[in-house]
């Protein structure tokens, strides 16, 4: 299939790509935060994205909750489950070495995925958007109201995360842990508590991402694995532990895959994300914006 190569079409794919990037960015930010602070590759964050989508589905369809409240509920669910998972599984395992947490993370992802299959069934779901079919249109480029809302909400969350890390005391403790763990302990930072905070923030972002994307992207219990693999590739591409790297990485990967799907073939789209990851590993092992450990 050949697509037109005109300005409007290219801009439209650009808009679509940026929208896809928001979902990736939120999950990748959480992953990179957890990795930076605790050196845990938390694959279970994918399951929290999936559960966030289901929370928004059942809250709006069965619980009579409004969509925006459902997004908040999905974030809270993600935050609580991530902190629980961190406190019960990862932190106790961590003192036995990193590879154990890696295996445990995959285990938690699969357990939650299969539990979801059992509880929710394997049907694809879609949550009705509170904005209906409303859309903005400028010179032929279309942005639905829901897409605009998700872009705005993601922008706000990223800004909030940035300001929290930069200006609040718990945020500074997270950065200190990531930059120099031993000194962080010596100035009196409780690494368990700060670790749980990192998990909760990441889980909130993943759960929120699931709920934000639920009206646009149909989901079943397997979506967690798809999302987390891609987000993981983004984090490696952007630089493990780098917050700007996660955002730039998400944008690059989402745009690349949108244009690949449009101009080459949809089957190649996933290849692009992992291709970029492998190229990054060869050309710049620390990632786009990452730093080599000193």
């Amino acid at each position, binding site marked *: 299939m050949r697509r037109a190569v005109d300005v409007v079409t290219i801009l439209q794919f650009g808009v679509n790509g940026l929208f896809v990037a928001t979902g990736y960015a939120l999950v990748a930010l959480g992953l990179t935060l957890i990795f930076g602070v605790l050196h845990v590759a938390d694959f279970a964050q994918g399951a929290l994205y999936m559960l966030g989508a289901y929370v928004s589905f059942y809250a709006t369809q069965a619980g009579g909750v409004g969509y925006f409240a459902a997004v908040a509920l999905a974030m809270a669910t993600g935050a609580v489950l991530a902190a629980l998972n961190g406190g019960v599984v990862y932190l106790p395992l961590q003192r036995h070495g990193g590879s154990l947490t890696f295996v445990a993370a995959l285990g938690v992802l699969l357990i939650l995925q299969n539990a979801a299959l059992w509880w929710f069934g394997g049907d694809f779901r879609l949550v009705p958007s509170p904005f209906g079919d409303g859309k903005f249109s400028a010179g032929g480029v279309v942005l639905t109201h829901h897409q605009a809302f998700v872009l705005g909400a993601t922008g706000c969350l990223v800004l909030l995360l940035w300001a929290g890390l930069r200006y609040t005391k718990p945020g500074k403790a997270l*950065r200190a842990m990531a930059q*120099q763990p*031993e*000194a962080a*302990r*010596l*100035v*009196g930072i409780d690494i368990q508590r700060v670790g749980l905070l990192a998990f909760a923030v990441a889980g909130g972002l993943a759960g929120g991402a699931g709920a934000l994307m639920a009206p646009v992207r149909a989901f079943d219990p397997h979506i967690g694995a798809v999302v987390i693999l891609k987000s993981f590739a983004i984090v490696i591409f952007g630089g493990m532990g780098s917050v700007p790297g996660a955002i730039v990485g998400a944008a690059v990967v989402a745009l690349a895959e949108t244009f690949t799907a449009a101009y080459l073939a949809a089957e190649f789209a996933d290849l692009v994300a992992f291709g970029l990851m492998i190229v990054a590993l060869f050309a710049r092992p620390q990632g786009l914006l990452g730093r080599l450990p000193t």
Partner: protein
Amino acid sequence: MGGEALLELDRVTVFYGRVRALQEVSLQVWPGEVVALLGSNGAGKSTALRLVSGLVAPAAGRVRFRERDLVGLGPASIVRLGIAHCPEGRKVFPEMTVRENLEMGAYTRRGSLEADLERVWALFPVLRQRQHQLAGSLSGGEQQMLAIGRALMARPALLLLDEPSMGLAPAVVQEVARAIRSLNASGTTVLLVEQNVHVALRIAHRGYVLENGRVVVSGTAEELSRDDRVRRAYLGA
């Protein structure tokens, strides 16, 4: 000296895995002193400091600070009791500004930090000029000053200093030495680990020499600088 020791290690043994890093080490630090731990690489000096600040736990023995048992307390509780540890290799937070690094040093405290910042600026004026620079962009000497300043922000009664002269130019070593004497004169007790024995014996009142995790010699700085074993092994006499 009369009164009670500020810090006391009583027959402490520490293992790293199966390696015995400290073996029945006993030492005392009295209020107002600068005490040096001397010895070659791997003698157990840094381990002794890591033990006091709660980074490692002893297999046997007691660690007491102001009569209080420290064993089992984590680093966060120990900082609150009044012990700050300036670690080997400075370990500043590289992507935080100088000022943020200092603020992190006061992590366990509440209230205004202005008086404490003024004290650090007075001790190391160059840090005031660099306060908005990232710590990772500082020279080695400035990073050492920042690491000491960060530890002081906890308002410690006892400062643990690990190898403050390591890798520094002689002029900077003099400046750091002067600062240690000055903060000691204003009431901070110091337990100092130092490979540069010349420098250590000039700053310290007393010292202990560790070999293979044991105390082999101890005495006043003057006694140690006259001791044949110390002279042969460390002073190149």
